[in-house]
Structures are given as C-alpha cells and as structure tokens.
C-alpha cells in the first residue's frame, strides 16, 4: 500500500524585488510505500525542504497533487496520522520539555491521562527524561533536535516525515536519531526523511530518491541499486608465477604489487572465479577477496554534481 503519493508537483516562488518566477519543485513524482524507510537526497537548493513543506501543508502547490494514505494531504484526519520534524526546529523556549510535548499532544486531541503517559515515554525514548522540567531556552541544539523528534512522534504516527533530522548533531546524537529511525521501521511505521549525510542514509534506508533541480533523478531500492551498479571485487594474492601474474593483470581493472602481495581490482563478470582457479592451479595463496559495492555517495555525485553549480542559483530566501 502507498503511504505517500506525489504527482506532477510544481512549486513556483516569486522573488520579492524583481517578482521573477523561480521554479523550485518541477513536476515531481514520488511514491513512498507503507512500512519503508525512504531517504530523500539532493544538493543544497534542490527543493527538498520545499517538497516536505508542501507535503505538510506549509506551502501551497502551484500545481500537482499530494495524497497521504489515499487522501488529500490537507485533510485534517490525515494530518493526525502524520508526524513532522522541520529542519533546524525552533520551539517555544518559555515552555518546559514536558509542557511542550503536552501542548502538541493536545493539538491531536489526546486525552489528559494518555498525554501524561505518552509524554513521559517519549521523553525517555529520546533521552530527555531527566530534563523534563527544564525550559527549552536552556536546551542545546542536539537536545532541541531530540525533543523535535519526540513532538513528531507524539501522535504515534503511521508516516513520519523528518527534514534533515541529523543535521548539526554530534556523532552520538546522529547515532541516537539513526537508532530511533530504525526502531520506527521495526514498529511498522513509514519514515520519509531528507538528509545530506549520505552514509546515514545508506545505513538505514530501504529506498532512496535523489532530487536535482526540483525533479527526482533517481528513485530506487537502495541495496539492489548498489549491488547492480558495482559488482567488482578486490583480490589479494601472493606466491604466483610471472605467467599467472600476466593473466591476472589482463583480466583485472588494475593491479598493484606491494612486496610479495598483489592487489587486483577484478570486474564482476565472472573473472573472480576464473582468477581463483588460476591462482590455486599455480600454487599461489589467496589472502582475501572483498566484493566492492559502489557507494551511495558516488551515485549521488554522479546524479547531482552536474546540477550543483546551477542549483546555487535556486537558493532563494530559505527554500
């Protein structure tokens, strides 16, 4: 079942002085399946935040449709099934963490007794239980981000939308947020998050979409995509004859000789098996075989790099 479906989404902004129209989202099509974790990548100014704001009703689309669980995204009942964490969130700093979450719980019409239980449980989940009575003005960026995660989960949402949830966090904070996302997936929730921290996306996502200049240039199953694009392997051997080395060199993408060891990058066209047989027949020793996968970063750079220079022009105000 589809959790979120975006069709032909367009968003234009007018520059404040020249009134020139700038297209930030340009005919975007996107489909997020229920229960999956979807990473939304793209260079700065590609329109990621604008897309998430359109989905959450903060911006009105110029054209196109957004449907959440089959219904229009502006439907109040549908909003009750969604949790949203905006980028660099700023919250009411005069409230304590407990008052803050209680306020958001009230916006979902949750009863007082349930609110108390949920607030306590969520504060524990994001590691802020000990700071429950402290005003938010005393919170660090990392703590604010974690509290932001808690407010996005206060309604136990089926679809969680997070805009750069790991930005500005230290490695421990990033790990904590990653763990929460993994837990959400385990609970059967759909997670859709934008990020420019590619290793984090690679680690926890089922599928990724790469947004470039307001259009999705890539939407694929992450692991299949990585396997499909990079079947090469690194082979380390030693104790082979000159003749075997020449054949190994001919079958490899490149070879490096380091003392008694030879390191060969072998293409994934069945050459590895041939070379293993060859080395064994020659009485050589196979030290290691490491299958290489193309990294998400290299896919991202290939998709987004040509557009990166143009995209800087699109950075109008706070898109």
């Amino acid at each position: 079942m589809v959790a979120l479906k975006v069709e032909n989404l367009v968003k234009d902004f007018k520059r404040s002085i020249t009134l020139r129209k700038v297209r930030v989202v340009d005919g975007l099509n996107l489909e997020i399946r229920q229960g999956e974790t979807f990473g939304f990548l793209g260079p700065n100014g590609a329109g990621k935040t604008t897309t998430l704001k359109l989905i959450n009703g903060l911006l009105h689309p110029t054209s196109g449709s957004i449907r959440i669980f089959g219904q229009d995204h502006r439907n109040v009942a549908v909003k009750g099934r969604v949790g949203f964490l905006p980028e660099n969130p700023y919250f009411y700093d005069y409230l304590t963490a407990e008052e803050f979450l209680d306020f958001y719980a009230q916006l979902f019409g949750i009863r007082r007794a349930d609110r108390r239980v949920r607030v306590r449980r969520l504060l524990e989940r994001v590691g802020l239980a000990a700071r429950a009575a402290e005003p938010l003005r005393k919170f660090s960026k990392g703590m604010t981000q974690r509290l932001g995660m808690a407010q996005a989960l206060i309604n136990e949402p089926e679809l969680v939308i997070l805009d750069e949830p790991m930005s500005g966090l230290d490695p421990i904070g990033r790990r904590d947020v990653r763990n929460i996302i993994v837990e959400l997936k385990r609970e059967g929730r759909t997670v859709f998050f934008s990020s420019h921290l590619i290793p984090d996306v690679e680690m926890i996502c089922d599928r990724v979409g790469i947004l470039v200049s307001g259009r999705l240039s890539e939407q694929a199953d992450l692991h299949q995509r990585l396997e499909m694009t990079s079947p090469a392997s690194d082979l380390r051997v030693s104790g082979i004859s000159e003749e075997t080395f020449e054949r190994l060199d001919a079958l490899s993408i490149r070879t490096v000789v380091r003392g008694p060891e030879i390191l060969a990058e072998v293409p994934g066209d069945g050459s590895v098996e041939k070379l293993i047989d060859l080395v064994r027949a020659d009485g050589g020793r196979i030290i290691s075989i490491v299958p290489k996968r193309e990294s998400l970063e290299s896919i991202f750079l290939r998709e987004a790099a040509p557009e990166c220079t143009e995209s800087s022009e699109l950075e109008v105000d706070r898109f």
Partner: protein
Amino acid sequence: MKVQAIAVNTFREAVRDKVLYSLLFFAIALIGASVVLNRLAIGQQTKIITDLGLASISIFGTLIAAFVGIGLVSKEIERRTIFTIVSKPVSRGCFILGKYLGLVLTLAVEVAIMSACFLTMLAIYADDLVIPALWAIGLIFMELSVVTAVAIFFSSFSTAFLSGLFTMAVWLIGHFTPDLRVFGERSGTAMRWLTEFLYYALPNLRNFNIKEQVVHGIPVAAEFMALSVVYGLVYVSVLLVVATLVFERRDFV
C-alpha cells in the same frame, strides 16, 4: 480543545513575557500617582482619579493588545514555530482563533489587575462612582478586544513592525471616525467617498468611550452599552474571518 490549547499556550507565553510586566507596572504606577495629583487639585479629586485610572487602563491595555498581540502571531512565523503547528491537524482558522482568545484572556487578567487597583482607590475617594466606572471598564475591555483583532488581522499578512504601526494608526483614527465623516461632508466628491469608506471600514472606537460621562456623573443608556457590545462583537468576528482567509492563502517559506 485545540483552540483552547492554543489559547492557553498564548496566555502562557504572554504572562512569561517581561514586556507585559513592565507595561503593567507603569499602568499601576500611574493609577497610584493619581492619589498624589489628587491632593494638588483641590475640588477635582474624584475627577483626576477617575480620569487617570480609566485612561491608564485604556492606553496600557491598547499597548499590550498592539505590541504583545502582533508579536504573538508574527513571532510564530519569524521563529518558524508555526511549522509544527500548521502541520498538525489544526486548521489555520483554529490557530487564529486560539491566538486571539489567548490574547483576550491575557488582556482580561491585565485589565482585572489594573481595575482592582483603580476601583480600590475610587472606593476610598468616591464610592458612588464605582459602578459607573465598572461599566466604563467593560467597554474599554470591548475596545481592547477590537484592537486585538485589528492587531491579529494585520499580523496575519504583515511583519511585526508594520502590524504594530498599522494597529496604532487604526486605534488613533478609530477615535476620530465621526470627525472624519464631518470632514468629508465639507470636501469634494472623491474625498467624501474616501472618508465615507474609512468611516464604515475602520472601527468607531468612540462607541466604547464613556469616560467623560462617568467622570461627570452623566448616566449612560443601557441600549447604548448593548449596541456598543454587539458592534464590537460583529467587528471582531468579521476581522477574524478576514484574517483567517488571508492566513489560509499564506505560504510559510
């Protein structure tokens, strides 16, 4: 429940704002100062206490309505706290109404504190004026409710600074709308149309001013009071509906 949650949160924000306390402090200090002035003006004692007391409640109430009011909506947008509210199952109209009611609640508490000081003094120096003064305070509160709606309306599409400026301008002109009409009648056609339009579009705040009558002991007709309240409620409702329509169309970039 959602409107109530936003209203209570707005009230909480206002009462945790130091500006409110500074304004309240000055208002009470001015009401207290009327006792000193009272001793200087022989024969005019009750007039000074009543005049200064009602004026303090009105002026400081307006300042709170305008400056705390515009801040409360504009700040939500400037600080981007609105992002997490609008993405929740809360309509924009619900947000505007909650903000408005929270601010009216703040004003009610603030007017109640100032009135308690003022009425205590009035009870000491002229207890017969306490009841008429209460009616005057009631209408001042209605005026403040209208000014708050004006502030919310402007801040639904403008910056905090401009909203404050516009609100104070409306408050000022609102006290002279009948004069505006008289001025138009003596001018050319175009000017007459303009003044006629402003007369009907801007709130006639004189409808809420019975200070003179209270000071001079002139009775005020119950019909006038009732009509003023109905006028205020209709004006507030129209402004909130228009503010909601404007807010509905707004993009939060």
